[in-house]
Each structure stands twice: as C-alpha cells, then as structure tokens.
C-alpha cells in the first residue's frame, strides 16, 4: 500500500486538463498511487461533470502503480460493478 496517493476528485474550480497534467506530473516525481473520484459506472453520480474526467485522467503513465476508484452510494447495485461487455 503506497504511503500517499494523489487525490483526483477535483473541485469545481479545476479543469479536467489541470487534473490530467497533475497526474502526469505526480507520476514523474514519484507518486505510485492515485485515488480517483471517478465512478466505474456512469450516470449515477451526484456531480454530472465527473465523468468528463475519465478520458483525461485515465492514461496513467507508470505501470507499477495503484489506482483506486469507487462507486457512489447512490450506485450500489450489482449491475453497476461490472459492465456486461468487458
């Protein structure tokens, strides 16, 4: 378990591009973990713009790393854990 992770659950005054740049920069300075506010399933979040982070923040450049993600409590359904086609 890494001692520290880069939080990527942004705030409403930071753009997806800024978050993506921070993820890349953090990986370059040695971070090996990020904690993502990105739900694995879309459509059940309370923050509509959250899914817009997905394409930008996903290209984690270091393979030896830990990414954690979650589903909101509003999305606790068996069907929201794993898409059918995967």
């Amino acid at each position, binding site marked *: 378990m890494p*001692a*520290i992770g880069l939080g990527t659950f942004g705030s409403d005054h930071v753009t997806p591009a800024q978050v993506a740049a921070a993820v890349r920069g953090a990986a370059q300075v040695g971070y090996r973990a990020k904690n993502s506010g990105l739900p694995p399933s879309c459509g*059940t979040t309370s923050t509509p713009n959250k899914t817009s982070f997905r394409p930008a923040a996903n290209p984690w450049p270091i393979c030896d790393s830990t990414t954690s993600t979650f589903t909101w409590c509003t999305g606790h359904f*068996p069907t929201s854990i794993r898409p059918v086609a995967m």
Partner: protein
Amino acid sequence: MTSRSEHAKPYLHESFMMTWRKMEELVDLGLVRHIGTSNMTIPKLKLVLRDARIQPAVNEMELHPHFQQPELFQYVVDQGIQPVGYCPIGSPGRPERDRTPEDTSPTEDPVIQAIGQAHGIHPAVVCIKWAVQRGQTPIPFSVNNYRANLAGIVDDPLSDDEMRRIAGLDRSCRLIKGQVFLWKDGQTWEDLWDIHGEITPP
C-alpha cells in the same frame, strides 16, 4: 444547502452485500487486486466484516487534524484494514455546498502553523506528515503542490512530541457532511454517520 440526490437511499445491508459479492467477483477474476469501502461507520463495517468472503483492504474516510475519528480509525486498523484519509489538509478548495459556518481549518490552526514554521514547511505539509506517521494513507488533491506533499513524507519527520500535540487538536469537525445523500425529508446530516453507534433505520 444542497437538495438531496434523487438516487439517495438508506443503507440496507442485504442490498449492500449483493453489490459486495460482485466486487468479490472482480477479485476472483483478477480484474482488481483489492476491494474496499468508504465512509463506513463501525456498525455498518461490523456487518460487512461478518458477511464478506473477501474483506475490505482499505476504508476511505475523512481524516485530518481537526477530524481524527479516533474510534473508527482504531477499529479499522485493528481489523487489519488500511485507512485512507480524504481531505487530509481540510479541503480548502471544497465547493460551497460543503461549507458551514462551524467548519474549522486545520491549516489555520496555530499549532499546525507553529510546527510548520519550526520545520520551514507549509502547514498543509504538516498535515500530510502527521497523516503518514499516524498510519493512514492521505490522498491530497493538488494540481500545483503535489511535489511538496510527496517530499514531505520522505524526510524531516515530525517528532513524537509534535505528533502528540497534533493528536490533541481533534475538534470532531466533519467537513464533508454528505447532505446530498440523505434519503428522506426531515433528516440531518448526522443521520448518515450513525453517531449513536447504531445504523440509522431506513
């Protein structure tokens, strides 16, 4: 005050475990290495630990010097679960909807500031050092200062005395109260957190 989410629902253990079973499958399939929980309370976590085939590896929870959650933290650690702490510096950039007049800011705490001055570091880095040395995994969000946050945990640790002084700063000040997840009218945010030791009835 933000209105409630139309998808908000109470914690129903049987329903939660149906979701947890699918997460256990992700481990079986090798799609993820670990599964975990977040924002659990002790009574909810007790049920999950009783019924889970694969135990949570982590529990993500709000943790900073003004909200140390000593009881839940110790319970989680005693169960062999790694605490992951969100809002480790008090989330100074959190949205307006998550602010109330009673909120306090750990980075403005005179003790945190004095320790920061003694080390020549920003008060935020004091919070990060404290988190790591206490044994939780902080996940600070930063687009500019992530380098300082990382550097802060690899050198110049806080002394035992400084750790003790920060332990004394707890104000039970929950910043992310979760009002949006209240599931019916007439509730207050405390209902989400089982503060009396029992799961709030649906």
